[in-house]
């Protein structure tokens, strides 16, 4: 469809050009400057991760232990990563059940010098972390200390320990 424009007079030449350009699909002239603002947001969710590096094999109970109070223990390193204050907890006891039942003590602790923030909170050992990466800086130790007798039947006893890491409330 063809449009017809009427020219009102010489003084309106620029206006006529603008109308003409608009009709041709061009952008209308604007002011020399303009701004607008848009919000920019970022949300980082709390995130934690824990990994036990290996299984725990407690020291083998040998024949010369029998009749004596001796402690058998084993340790695994633990990786902790968190972007928020977080608490790592592990059960204070582990049950080994294969040929019988053994209750094994468990504990978590931090390696290296300085105060160890382990505190007791039955039935869990708890360890607090501030945001950061702690690869291999935490130990998980299982131990059993007792007088070994012939009632401690020969064999291999197995249990499982689960560590839980959660953002501190």
């Amino acid at each position, binding site marked *: 469809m063809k449009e017809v424009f009427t020219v009102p007079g010489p003084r309106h030449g620029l206006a006529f050009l603008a109308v003409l350009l608009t009709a041709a699909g061009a952008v209308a002239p604007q002011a020399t400057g303009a701004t607008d603002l848009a919000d920019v947001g970022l949300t980082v969710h*709390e995130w934690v991760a824990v990994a*036990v590096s290996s299984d*725990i094999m407690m020291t083998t109970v040998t*024949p010369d232990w029998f009749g004596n109070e001796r402690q058998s223990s084993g340790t695994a390193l633990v990786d902790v990563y968190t972007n928020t204050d977080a608490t790592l907890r592990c059960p204070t006891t582990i049950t080994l059940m294969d040929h019988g039942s*053994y209750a094994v003590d468990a504990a978590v602790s931090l390696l290296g010098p300085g105060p160890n923030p382990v505190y007791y909170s039955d039935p869990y050992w708890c360890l607090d972390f501030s945001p950061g990466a702690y690869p291999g800086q935490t130990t998980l130790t299982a131990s059993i200390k007792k007088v070994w007798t*012939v009632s401690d039947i020969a064999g291999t006893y197995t249990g499982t320990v689960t560590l839980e890491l959660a953002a501190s409330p």
Partner: protein
Amino acid sequence: MRKAIVSLAAIAALALFAAPAAAAEDSDSCDVTLTIEDYCHIEYGGTSFDITLSGGASGGSDVEGFHAGANFAAGISGVLTPPTGAPGDWSFDIDGQGQAVINFGPGEYNAGVGGTVTVTVENVGLADGADSWATGGTMEITVQATP
């Protein structure tokens, strides 16, 4: 229909973003194992079997106690070696079971009581003469895993 599907997708997306973030938590597990090796023990309560024949007796015996234990299924057996050159017929008996292997365990054999070994000599004749045979005689008891 297509618009409806698009609208539903948009609502689902909004719901997803509007939902509260899941609590930050993680867990990991590991196995814990303890190995207890085989253990057993056996020992006499006394020091020796001493048999004395007097008054024309042709035989006699002596009894000694023992304690044994094992943390596996075990058997007790014995081997008697009479004193070198000693006359008579010799035998032993463990807890009335003769010379058979006694099975027990795991645990202490006759917990708190233990067992007894009897060493006997018979058929010692006058012609064997009076003498003392004190060397070479042993009564060995053994505890070991049952086959």
